[in-house]
C-alpha cells in the first residue's frame, strides 16, 4: 500500500529526532569531560547508554522509512515509544549523573535527552495513529 505524505513527514521527523539523540549526545549535549587523572565520571556511562539507544532508534527510524508493509511500520513506530521514554529516563533516573546539578551533564545533557526522548515517543505514537487511520481508510 502506498504511504501518505503525513507518514513520510512523521517518518522523517522520527529519523531526525533519533539522529539528534545519537549524534547530539556525543557532539552537542554531551556529558562532562574526564577527570584530571583521565578517569570518567558516572555521567559518561549515561552518555554511552543514550548514544547506544539513539543509534537503535535511528536504525528503527530508517526501517520505518523503507519497510513496505504498513503493519510492520506501525509496529516499529510503536517500538519508538518505549525507546524514547527509556532514553529520557537514562540520565540521573537510571544512571546517576554528577554531584552538582549546574554541571554540564545536568544542565545540558539531561534536559536535552529528556526533551528529544519525549518528542520521539510522541512522534512514534502519532505515526502509529496516522498509519492506522490510513490503513482503515
Amino acid at each position: 500500500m502506498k504511504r501518505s505524505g503525513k507518514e513520510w513527514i512523521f517518518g522523517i521527523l522520527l529519523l531526525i529526532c533519533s539522529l539528534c539523540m545519537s549524534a547530539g549526545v556525543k557532539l552537542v549535549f554531551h556529558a562532562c569531560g574526564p577527570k584530571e587523572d583521565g578517569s570518567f565520571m558516572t555521567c559518561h556511562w549515561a552518555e554511552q547508554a543514550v548514544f547506544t539507544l539513539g543509534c537503535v532508534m535511528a536504525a528503527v527510524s530508517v526501517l520505518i522509512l523503507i519497510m513496505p508493509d504498513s503493519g510492520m511500520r506501525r509496529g516499529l513506530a510503536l517500538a519508538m515509544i518505549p525507546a524514547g521514554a527509556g532514553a529520557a529516563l537514562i540520565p540521573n533516573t537510571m544512571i546517576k549523573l554528577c554531584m552538582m546539578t549546574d554541571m554540564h551533564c545536568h544542565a545540558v545533557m539531561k534536559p536535552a535527552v529528556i526533551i528529544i526522548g519525549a518528542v520521539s515517543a510522541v512522534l512514534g505514537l502519532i505515526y502509529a495513529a496516522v498509519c492506522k487511520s490510513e490503513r482503515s481508510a
Partner: protein
Amino acid sequence: MKSLAMKNLSGRPVRTAVLVILAALLTFTALGGTLTVASLGKGLDSLEARLGADVMVVPKEATMKKKFEDIVLQGSTGYFYMDSSRAEEVMECEGVGEVSPQFFLASTGSSCCSIPVQIIGFDPATDFTVSPWIKRTYGGELGLYDIVAGSDLNAFVGDKLSFYGVECTVAAKLEKTGTSYDTTVFTNEQTIKALIQSSLDKGMNDFKDIDPARSVSCLMINAADGTSPEELVNDINIHVKKVKAYRSGDMINGIAGSLGGVSQMIKLLIAAVWVLGIVILLLAFTMSVNERKKEFAVLRVMGASRSKLAGLVLKEALMTCLIGSAAGAVIGLLILIPFNGVIEQTLSLPFLLPEAGSIAGITAAAVVLSVLTGAAAAAVSAWRVSRIDTGVILRGDN
C-alpha cells in the same frame, strides 16, 4: 463560516505558516524575556536574603584574593581564616547586635566528580543567616558528621558523602535559592573542625600561623538597635586591625548593576521584536486582504453580510495567532525551564525561576497579549473588508 476560515488557512499553507511563526516569535520573545527578567529579579532578592546580615567581617588578606567576591557571593570554592581573637575584638565594638561566625572549607573532588564543593560551617547556637533556610526543609538539630546539601547537589537525604576521608550523612537538602547556597554543603562547627583537621592530617590544607581550633572565616553581624550598618562598618574598620567589614548591601551592588544592565537589554530586545512583529503582522494582513478582494466581493454577492466578512478576517487572524502563540509558549517553556541552569551559567548572575503559578500567569499573559496584538493588527484589515465596494471590485476597477 468557521469551516471557511479553516479552509482559507489550509488553502494557503505558506501564508498561514508565516503568520503562525510570527505569532510564535512574539509570544516566545514576550514569555522568554519576561521570565528571564523575573528570574533575575527573584535571584537578586534571594541573594539579599541569603546574605541575611547587615555586616560581614572577613580577614583583610582575604579581600586581596582575586576570587574573594566569587567565594562570598557566587559560591566559588575557596577559604580564608582569621584568628578568633580578632573576632572577639570585633564583637567588643559598639553597636554590634547579633554575631555568628562561619567557617569556609573547599573540598577536593569527591568520589563522583572532579569539581570541588564549598563547605560552610556555622554555629547553630548563634547563627541567624543559614538556619532560616535550613529550617524550611529540616527541623532537627545537625549532629556530628551531619550535613545539609544545597539544592543543586545531586545528593539526597540519607546519602553518604566523603570529604577528606570523613564520611558525612546528608541530613537535609535545601530548597532552591538561585544563589551560591545551591552548590554548597552546610554543617555545624564541630563537623567542619573535624573536616579541617582531616584536611590538615592529609596535608591538603595550609593554615600558616593560625591555629585551626581557634579560627573563623568570617563574622556575620547584625547592627544593634540604634546603630546603622554604615556606622558599624566604619567603627570596625577603624578600630579592629587586619579585618575588613562590608555592608551586605554594598557587596551586591555590583551584581545588582549587572543585573539592571541585562534586564534593560532584554526589555529593549522585547520592544524591538514586538514593534517589528506588529509592523509585519499589519503588512501581512493588509496584503492578504488586498489580494483577496475579489474573493470577498464574491462572498458579498453570495449573501455574506459586511460584518460576516470582517468576522471571517478576524477569525482567521485569531486562529493563526492562537496556534502560533501556543507553539511559541511551549517552545519558550521547553527552553527556559529545563535549561535554566545553562542560562544561569551564561549570565553569571543569580537566577531563580518564579513559582509554577507565576510561570503559568506569565505564559497566559504572553499568549493573550500576542493573540490580542494579532487581532488588533487584523482589525484594520477587517474594517477595510467590511467597506469594500463589491461592484467596483468585480468590474475590475480596483
